[in-house]
C-alpha cells in the first residue's frame, strides 16, 4: 500500500504546486502532490508562456523580480531548459496618451527602486520591432524578460520534484479537507492523505479548498484565449503587448506566432471544458493586424484556452491561511502566474518549512477578501468542512 502521509500535502499539480513541491523537497520535506487531472493539464500547461516582469501590478514586482532571477538559471534548477528564451518584452503605445501613461509607470517603478522597465521612443521601438505599424509612437520595454514552453516547464518541475522523492497522485481529486489534531486530512477519489502542512495551489478550483478551510473567497474560473498561426518568416524577436488594448504576441523559434492577451472564452471547470468565443477573439486578430500589418497574411492553425482562476482584484492569493495554522495558499494568479511560478514556489516552501518569509507577500493576504466586520478570522458557519 502506498504511503499516504507526508510533511506537506500540495493540492494542485500546476506550475505553482509543482514548484512549491520541488522547493519543499529541496528543503528536505516529504511531499505529496494531489492533482485532479494530470500535471499541467490546465492554465499552467497551455498558457502563452510569457516570462514577463513588464507591466506587472506594483505589488507583484518584487516577487516577479525574484522569480526572474530563477528563470535565468532555470536549467540548473530543473535539469531542463524549459524552452526558456531571453527576449525583450515590449508594450507598444499607439498614441501619445498611451506613451505618457507608460512613461509615468516607468517613473513610478524607478521611485520604487526598479530599473528594468525602460521607455522606448519611436526609433528605439523600431530598432526592436522593425515590423511594427507606422502609427505606433513608442513603448515600454523590459529587455531581460523572455518566454518559455509552459507544459515543458511545468512537466520539468514535476519531474525534478519526483526525482527528489515527491509523490504525485494524478487523476486524484481532493474532495474534502479536514483537520484531525494537528494534521490535515485530504479525502480524495483514491483514499485519504494526511499531512502536517497543507498548500492550496488549486488554480480555478482553489476556492472550494479555501471555503473548506473556513475562508471563502471568490475565484472566478476564466478561459484566457490564445491562437497560433502557421509558420511565418522571422519578423519579430520580442514579446509584444499593447498599452490600450489586450494583446500578447510572440513569434516562436519555429516561425509560428502565438497571440493571446487575456480575452476570455467560456470556462466550465466542472467538466474541464473551455470554449473559444470567436466573436471576442476577433478583436485579438484585429489588434495583431493593427500592430503588425504582416499578420494580414497569417493563417490561424489552432486556438485554445486553459482554465485559470481569477481574483476579484486581479492579483493572486499568496498567503498563510488565516483560519488554520499550517495551511497556506498560492492561487488565483489571474492569467499572469506562469512567470511567478519559480519564485512563488520558493517562497511557499520557505513559509511551509519555517513559518515565515521576508518576501513582501502582505498585499496578497487571503484576509483582504474577508468581510470587514469579520476580518480577524473565521466564523463557525464557515468551517463546516472542518471537523476536529
Amino acid at each position: 500500500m502506498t504511503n499516504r502521509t507526508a510533511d506537506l500535502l500540495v493540492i494542485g499539480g500546476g506550475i505553482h504546486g509543482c514548484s512549491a513541491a520541488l522547493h519543499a523537497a529541496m528543503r528536505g520535506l516529504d511531499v505529496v502532490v494531489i492533482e485532479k487531472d494530470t500535471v499541467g493539464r490546465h492554465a499552467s500547461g497551455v498558457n502563452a508562456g510569457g516570462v514577463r516582469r513588464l507591466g506587472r501590478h506594483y505589488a507583484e514586482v518584487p516577487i516577479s523580480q525574484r522569480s526572474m532571477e530563477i528563470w535565468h538559471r532555470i536549467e540548473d534548477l530543473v535539469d531542463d531548459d524549459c524552452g526558456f528564451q531571453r527576449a525583450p518584452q515590449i508594450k507598444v503605445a499607439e498614441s501619445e496618451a498611451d506613451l505618457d501613461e507608460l512613461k509615468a509607470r516607468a517613473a513610478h517603478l524607478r521611485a520604487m527602486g526598479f530599473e528594468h522597465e525602460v521607455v522606448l521612443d519611436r526609433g528605439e521601438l523600431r530598432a526592436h520591432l522593425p515590423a511594427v505599424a507606422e502609427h505606433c509612437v513608442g513603448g515600454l520595454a523590459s529587455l531581460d524578460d523572455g518566454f518559455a514552453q509552459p507544459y515543458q516547464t511545468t512537466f520539468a518541475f514535476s519531474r525534478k520534484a519526483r526525482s527528489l522523492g515527491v509523490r504525485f497522485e494524478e487523476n486524484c481529486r481532493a474532495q474534502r479537507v479536514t483537520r484531525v489534531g494537528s494534521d490535515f486530512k485530504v479525502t480524495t477519489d483514491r483514499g485519504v492523505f494526511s499531512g502536517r502542512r497543507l498548500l492550496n495551489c488549486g488554480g480555478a478550483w482553489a476556492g472550494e479548498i479555501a471555503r473548506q478551510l473556513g475562508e471563502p473567497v471568490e475565484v472566478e474560473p476564466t478561459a484566457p484565449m490564445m491562437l497560433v498561426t502557421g509558420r511565418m518568416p522571422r519578423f519579430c524577436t520580442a514579446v509584444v503587448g499593447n498599452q490600450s488594448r489586450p494583446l500578447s504576441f510572440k513569434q516562436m523559434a519555429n516561425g509560428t506566432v502565438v497571440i493571446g492577451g487575456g480575452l476570455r472564452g467560456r470556462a466550465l471547470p466542472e467538466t474541464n471544458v473551455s470554449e473559444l468565443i470567436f466573436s471576442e477573439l476577433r478583436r485579438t486578430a484585429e489588434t495583431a493586424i493593427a500592430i503588425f500589418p504582416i499578420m494580414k497574411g497569417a493563417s490561424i492553425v489552432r486556438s485554445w484556452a486553459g482554465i485559470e482562476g481569477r481574483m476579484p482584484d486581479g492579483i493572486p492569493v499568496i498567503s498563510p491561511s488565516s483560519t488554520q495554522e499550517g495551511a497556506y495558499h498560492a492561487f488565483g494568479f489571474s492569467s499572469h502566474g506562469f512567470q511567478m511560478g519559480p519564485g512563488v514556489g520558493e517562497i511557499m516552501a520557505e513559509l511551509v518549512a519555517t513559518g515565515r518569509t521576508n518576501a513582501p507577500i502582505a498585499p496578497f493576504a487571503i484576509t483582504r477578501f474577508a468581510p470587514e466586520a469579520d476580518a480577524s478570522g473565521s466564523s463557525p458557519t464557515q468551517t463546516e468542512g472542518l471537523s476536529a
Partner: protein
Amino acid sequence: MNSYDVVIVGAGPAGMACAAEARQAGLSTLVLDEQPRPGGQIFRDIEVSDPGRRALLGKDYAEGARIAEAFRASGADYVSGAVVWNIDSAKRIDYSAGGRSHSVEAKSLVAATGAIERPTPMPGWTLPGVTTVGAAQILLKTSGIVFEDLVLVGSGPLLWLAASQMITAGVPPKAIVETVPKSRYRAAARHVLRALPGWRYLAKGFAMMRAVKRAGVPVHRDAEDIAIEGDSAATAVTFTSGSKRHRIETAHVALHQGVVPNQQMTRVMNCQHRFDESQRAFLPVLSEDFETTVPGVFVAGDGAGIGGAKSAAMRGRLVAMRIAETAGKPVSGERAKLRTALARDAAVRPLLEALYAPSDDVLSPADAVMVCRCEEITAGQIREAVALGAPGPNQVKSFLRAGMGPCQGRMCGLAVSEIIAAARGESPSTVDYYRIRPPLKPLLLSELAGLGAEAPREAAE
C-alpha cells in the same frame, strides 16, 4: 444570423440522403460541403462524370447519381466550397466560403464528414511520390490521372478496388504489396457465416482480386518491414515477403491501411468517443438513432463507424427521421425497413475488420520513422516522452508539438495514440486522443478579424 432546423456538414451519400429526407419531413435544411460539387469522396464529381469515369465506378455510379439528384431536387439550401472551422456548444457553426467567414445556427446538427485514411507512418512515407491509395483514387476519378509505375502498399478493400479501377482505366498498378498477415485469414474465417448476408460485397471483392490476377499484376502477400527508398523523392519500395527481401523500383507509391472515422468535428464539440477494438479506431458514442452524447448533434455515414456508401445513405435517412420525429413530425413508415436493411448491409463488416485489421508491424513504426509530418516528430521521440512520464497524446502534444501543426493531428492522431498505448502497455481507449481545437482547418487571421462584418447586411434583408 440565419438559423435552420438541420445543418448537415458534408455532401457525401450520408449528407445528401439526410438532407433529402429532412426536406421531405418539411425541415429547413442547410448542407455545407468543402467540395465544389456534391458527392463526397466516394461519389466525387458524380454529376459531371463522363462515360469513362462512370465505367470506373460501375454499378455504384447509378446509386450515387440517384442520391445526388434527389438531393438537388430536395430544396435543401446548399453551400459548396464551405469550410466549417468551428461549431460551438450552442450549435453555432462558423464556416469560410468565398474568402469570408459566415455563421449559422442549427437546431440539429449532422456531422456527415465521413472517413479518412488511417495514418501509415513507415520509413520514407513523407517522400515526394508517396501518396495514399484514397488520394490516388480521387485523382483517377476526377482527372483520369494514373501513374504508370504506381505500387499499392497496405491492406483493405480500397486497395483492391483502386487496383481494379486502374485496370479498367487501362493503367494497372505495377505491383500490390499487401500487409495482411497470414494469421488474419484464420481470424477472419470465424466471421464467414455471419457475413453471408453480405455475399454481394464478398463476391465483389473476389471479382476485384480476380481482375488483378487476370491483368497479371504481381501481388506480394504477408509483407512486413516496408520501407520506401529515396533521397529527395521515392525511388523504390522494399519489404519482406515469403521470408525474402524484395525491392521494387518505382517513383510512385500509394499507401493504405483502411479508413477510419474522421473525428475532428465531433471532438471539437466535446462529444464522447470510444475506442473500437474491431475497427481499431475511435468512434463517437452514439444512440441507436446516431445521436452523440451532445444532444441534437448527430453523426451519419462513415463518421459513425465504417460501413460504406450504402450504409452511409441509410444512416443519413435514419438521422433525418429521428430529427423529424423530435420536431413532432410523423415518422416515416420506412424506418423499420431501413434499420433491417442497415443491419444486413453491415453483416460483412466483422469479417472485413478481422481480415484487414492493421498489422502490429504497421502499428509500431521504428523509432526513426517520422509520425507527425507537420512538426517532424518521430516515433522514437514520442516513446521518449512517454518514458519521461507523459501519460497521453495531449501531454505528448504539449511537450513535443506533435499534432500541433496545420493538420491538427488528422494525419498522425491515431498513430500517436497507438504508439503511446503500446509504450505504456495500455489500450488506446485509456490513453485517448488529441483534444481538437478550432479552427478545424486553417483560417486567415484577416478573415477572423472580419468576422461578423456581414451582420448589418443580414439585418437589412
